C-alpha cells in the first residue's frame, strides 16, 4: 500500500521556531498501523522525526496524537482505515498540551491535574483490623474507568481545555470518580464528601460542556464525560447543591416537572438567583436584544398536554423512600 503521511512538525532548536507540514511517501503492508508507518519514516527516511512510543499494543499510552484531526493511539489505528481517497493520512501532535518537538508534547499539565485530585484511596474513620474489604459487586462498575492508560487523548481533544487550560479536564475528573465511586473511599457509607466538595469548585466538574469529544476519542472506553456526569449526581446527592451548575440542573428539572417543557425565561434567574442583580444585569443586554427582535420566550409559560402525568412520573421516580 503506497501512502502519504502529512505530518505537522516542529523543531524548537532552529531560530524563530514555527510548526510546518512535511509529506512522507512510503510503502506499507496492508496490516500496518499508523505507528508502524511513523517508525518506518524515522528509521528509513528522516531520523530527526520525534515521537513517543513503547508497547505497540495500546497498553502503555505513549503514542497518543491527532490522526486526521482526532486524538487516538497511533498503534491502535490501522493505516488502511485511516487514509483518505488519495491515500493520505494527516498526523499532528496531541492538542492542548505544549509541543516539545514534532509529535512529542509536554505532559506536565496532564500529570499536575491528575495529582490535584489525590489519585489514591482516602478512607475515613477508624482503620479495620485487617484489610479494607470491598465486594466484587461494588467494584465491578469501576472496571471501565480503571482501564485508563493515561494517554492524554481526552485532554488533547477537550473542547473546554482548548479555551481554558485551568479546567481539571476529563482524565483527572475520571480519575477522581474512580475514587469517589470506590466504596472504601470516604466515610462509612462510601461517600467522599471532601473530594466532592473540592471537585465542585471552579475549574471542576461543572465546567465540562458535555460535548462528548473525550468519550469519542478515548481508546480504552473510559467514557470520561459519563464519569463527570456521575460526579455531578454524586455531588448533588451529597448535598453540594448550591453551585450554578447544580442549581441549573435543579431549575431545569423543576421546570420540566411542572410543565413538561423548559421555561427558558425563568431558567437563568432560577439558576443564578432572582436577586443576583450583578449577574442578571450582565445578561440584560442579551435579554433586551431578544425582546426587540421578538425572540423573548413567552411570559406565560405553556404546559404540555396532560402535564400532570409528567409531574406524577417525577414524583414516583424521585421519591426518596423508594428502594
Amino acid at each position: 500500500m503506497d501512502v502519504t503521511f502529512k505530518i505537522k512538525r516542529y523543531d524548537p532548536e532552529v531560530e524563530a521556531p514555527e510548526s510546518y507540514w512535511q509529506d512522507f511517501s512510503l510503502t506499507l503492508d496492508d496490516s500496518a498501523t499508523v505507528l508502524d508507518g511513523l517508525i518506518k519514516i524515522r528509521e528509513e527516511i528522516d531520523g530527526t522525526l520525534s515521537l513517543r512510543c513503547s508497547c505497540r499494543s495500546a497498553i502503555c499510552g505513549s503514542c497518543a496524537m491527532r490522526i486526521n484531526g482526532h486524538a487516538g493511539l497511533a498503534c491502535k489505528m490501522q493505516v488502511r482505515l485511516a487514509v483518505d481517497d488519495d491515500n493520505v493520512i494527516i498526523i499532528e501532535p496531541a492538542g492542548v498540551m505544549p509541543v516539545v518537538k514534532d509529535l512529542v508534547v509536554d505532559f506536565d499539565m496532564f500529570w499536575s491535574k491528575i495529582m490535584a485530585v489525590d489519585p489514591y484511596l482516602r478512607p475515613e474513620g477508624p482503620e479495620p483490623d485487617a484489610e479494607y474489604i470491598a465486594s466484587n459487586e461494588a467494584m465491578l462498575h469501576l472496571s471501565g474507568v480503571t482501564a485508563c492508560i493515561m494517554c492524554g487523548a481526552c485532554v488533547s481533544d477537550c473542547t473546554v481545555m482548548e479555551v481554558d487550560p485551568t479546567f481539571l479536564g476529563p482524565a483527572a475528573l475520571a480519575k477522581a470518580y474512580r475514587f469517589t465511586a470506590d466504596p472504601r473511599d470516604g466515610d462509612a457509607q462510601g461517600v467522599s464528601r471532601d473530594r466532592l466538595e473540592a471537585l465542585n469548585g471552579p475549574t471542576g466538574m461543572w465546567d465540562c460542556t458535555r460535548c462528548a469529544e473525550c468519550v469519542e476519542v478515548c481508546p480504552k472506553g473510559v467514557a470520561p464525560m459519563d464519569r463527570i456526569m456521575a460526579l455531578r449526581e454524586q455531588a448533588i446527592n451529597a448535598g453540594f447543591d448550591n453551585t450554578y451548575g447544580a442549581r441549573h440542573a435543579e431549575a431545569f428539572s423543576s421546570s420540566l416537572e411542572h410543565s413538561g417543557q423548559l421555561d427558558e425565561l425563568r431558567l437563568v434567574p432560577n439558576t443564578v438567583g432572582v436577586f443576583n442583580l450583578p449577574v442578571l444585569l450582565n445578561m440584560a443586554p442579551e435579554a433586551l436584544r431578544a425582546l426587540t427582535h421578538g425572540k423573548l420566550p413567552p411570559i406565560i409559560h405553556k404546559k404540555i398536554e396532560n402535564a400532570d402525568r409528567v409531574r406524577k412520573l417525577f414524583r414516583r421516580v424521585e421519591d426518596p423512600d423508594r428502594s
Partner: protein
Amino acid sequence: MKYAFFPGCVSRGGCPELYPAAKLICQRLDIELQEMPGASCTGAGVLQEKNEFLGDTLNARTFAMAEDLGLPIMTICSTCQGVMSQANHRMKSNPEYLAKVNVELAEEGLEYNGNAEPKHLLWILIEDYGLEKLEPLITRPLAGIRLAPFYGCYILRPTNALDFEDNPERQNSLERLIETLGATVVDFAGKTRCCGFPILTINEKNSMAMVGKHTAEAKDLGADAMVTPCPLCHLNLDAFQPKASAQAQRSIDLPIIHMPQAIGLAMGITPKDLGLQRHIVSTKALITKLGVAAG
C-alpha cells in the same frame, strides 16, 4: 411521508423563528407532520445530570406515543436528537433496563416496545427523502454564498448511540446538504466542536471564548454565514455573539442561519417568512448578497 413531529422547546421559545421555518419547508417537501402535544422535553442532558433514569423514562414516554401513532419521529434540534438517541441506545441495548422503564410507563397506560428511531430533519433529507428529490425544489440556488457548517455536539457524538457505523453519511451530512443548496462549503476545524451553550450560566467566560473562536475562524475563512441544525448552538452563536466579540476584542459579525432557513431560502421562500429578521446578528448583508428582497 409522515412523521411524529418533535420540535423541542427552543424552536418555540428562544428561537421562535425555527418552528415556523421548519414547518414551512416540510410543507414544500410534502412531508406531513403529526404533532405530539403530550410529549415532554427530552431533559436536554441537564435533567440526566440529576437523574438519568428519569430522563430516559421521559424519552421512552415520547417514543411510546409515536409507536401508538405508528409513525417515525422527526426532530429539528441536534440536542433533542442526541439525547433521544442516547436514551434509546441505553434502552435497546439492555432489555432489563427497558422493562424497568416500562414499569413507570404502565402507570399511564403506555408501553415502549423499542421500535422508535428518532431522526433529525437533516438525516431524514439524506436517508429517507433523498437529496436528489430535494434538488428539483431548489428554485433559487445559493450560488456564490459561502456557508460554514456547525453541527452541534449531540448530533455527532457519541457515535455508537447515533448509529454512525451503519450510517456513515451522517458524518458529513450538513456539508452535503449545503452543496445541494448550491452554496459553497467553508470547511473549518470548529465545525464539530462545542458552541459553549451548556456552560453559559456556569462559566460564561469559557462559553464566550468558544463562540468567539468558532465564529471568528469561519468569518476569517470568508464565510457569509454559518448554518446549524441545532437551535441551542444558534442561541449561543447568534444571541451571544456580540458579547463573545467584545470578549475577543475583535469584530465578528457572522450571521447564524438555522438549517431549515437555509433550505427555505434556496426554495425561494422569502427571508421574512423564514424569520431572518429575528436574528440578533443582522442577516441583511447575506440577503443582499443573495440578491432577493427581504420580503
